[in-house]
């Protein structure tokens, strides 16, 4: 059977790939452009990157993003792993309802999540700040962690846990000495995913952060809105690199057997 693809098909595909990647490549390229008005190439410079480090708002935003990312990742990873364990190894009443319920945050539009939490915090008189951001991020990252860890759990040989038990390890020992080492790449992968989503989030964060607790995306949004200068390209490039690295890592982790 002829397995060569028609040329028009390949052209369309290449065009789509170009469409997907060229804008980003251009963005990155122009972060090194020695011109404030950024539309034509003047010369190479790292100036815009240096300027980033001199901007207190960027540094504060980065710090906030890292704190929020770290905290929400840890919480999502722990809670998500526990839920995945229950779903994979136990049959219980309400299980299908829970499985369905876990998918709802994934399809719910970000504005809905954002404003509903804003309403909650306002009603409960909880001041907006890093804590509220962390709470919100855990809420939308949790389901993803469950899915990733669950996939890993279901691929895991259940006999391993039985083997440990018949060798004298009780449930808790088995969990730490056999289940967790097996699960670790899955948990790490889920955590990296959660961190990436948290680090990149704008919409939800914009609703639940107070004026003093801007994360990096919020700062960048402000920059885009107010005044276009190549510093935005620079910070975008950095964000892209960090995200790419994390996703690549998460991908490798889920691959290894």
């Amino acid at each position, binding site marked *: 059977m002829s397995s060569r693809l028609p040329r028009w098909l390949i052209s369309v595909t290449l065009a*789509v790939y170009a469409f997907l990647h060229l*804008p*980003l490549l*251009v963005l990155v390229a122009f972060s090194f452009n020695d011109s404030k*008005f*950024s539309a034509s190439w003047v010369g190479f410079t790292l100036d815009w990157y240096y300027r980033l480090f001199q901007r207190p708002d960027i540094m504060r935003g980065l710090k906030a993003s890292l704190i929020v990312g770290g905290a929400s990742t840890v919480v999502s990873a722990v809670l998500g792993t526990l839920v995945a364990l229950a779903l994979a190894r136990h049959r219980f009443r309400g299980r299908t309802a829970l499985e369905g319920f876990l998918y709802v945050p994934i*399809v719910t539009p970000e504005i809905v999540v954002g404003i509903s939490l804003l*309403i909650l915090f306002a009603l409960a008189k909880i001041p907006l700040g890093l804590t509220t951001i962390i709470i919100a991020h855990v809420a939308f990252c949790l389901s993803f962690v469950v899915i990733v860890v669950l996939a890993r759990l279901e691929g895991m040989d259940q006999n391993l846990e039985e083997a440990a038990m018949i060798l004298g390890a009780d449930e808790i020992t088995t969990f730490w000495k056999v289940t967790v080492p097996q699960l670790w790449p899955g948990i790490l992968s889920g955590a990296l995913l959660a961190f990436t989503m948290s680090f990149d989030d704008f919409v939800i964060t914009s609703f639940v952060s107070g004026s003093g607790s801007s994360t990096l995306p919020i700062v960048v*949004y402000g920059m885009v809105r107010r005044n276009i200068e190549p510093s935005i390209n620079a910070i975008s490039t950095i964000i892209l690199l960090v995200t790419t690295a994390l996703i690549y890592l998460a991908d490798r982790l889920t691959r290894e057997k």
Partner: protein
Amino acid sequence: MASPRQRILGWLHPRPQARAWLLVAPGTLWLLVFFLVPILIMLVYSVMPRGIYGGVDPGFTLEHYRRFFDPLYLDILQRTFVWSVACTVICLVLGYPVAYVIARAGRWKSFLLFLVVLPFWTSFLVRTFAMIFLLRDTGLINNWLVKLGVDPIAMLYTPFAVMAGLVYGFLPFMVLPIYASLEKLDLSLLEAAEVLGARPTERFRRVTLPLSMPGVVAGCLLVFIPALGSFLTSDLLGGAKQMMIGNLVQNQFSAARNWPFGSAASFIVMALVLAAVMLYLKVKDREQAKAT
């Protein structure tokens, strides 16, 4: 003589339900309190009258929902819906060939897939900014047009820009599910069709396309839903004139200060999304019933 640990394990062992619920409790509680309850409160807010400072006063009213029959808001609803559908169609037309090529790519499969997935995971904000950078009046494209002696085109703050941004943002969501179902396609079916005399277009139409339908439907759903609820794209690329429901909602919680109305708008988005999901599930069930 049993240690506390042994006693706890001993108690838990004959109670599989208790064990499961113990594990599930923290995560479920978090989602209930910080996801479900807020949405319910938002629903309640949407039927309460507006208070002085933009909050709510006690009472019950459907006026916020009734406002959506105003031409101004109907317009926004319609625009959102139409653009979401258009975006889905464009993504399908562009995404299906890509998925097809990847599925037949052999050694290159995982690399090509990774290239598609990568933009999907990077910051939406950054990707939207990339679009701005290209489409601005002083942006890259216009810069080249000027150099070529052509007048610059105003691309930003037009429906075209928003559509470009939407497609750019959601295209990977279309490619992945279609790829997944094409991957499972048994090539021997196509060979059989060829032996029976079917030409390439016929083979595609009668074998490949129907069998890839589950992926197509899933992909459409995965694009349509976020498009409905999208906010950032129309905000940064569309400006004030190209308002989608997402922008309306955001507006009510900032400048316009009308939380109940914003809640109603938000709830409408949610309802549209849920309707789309239920439709998808029904179609999936019907397809599965047909297959068995």
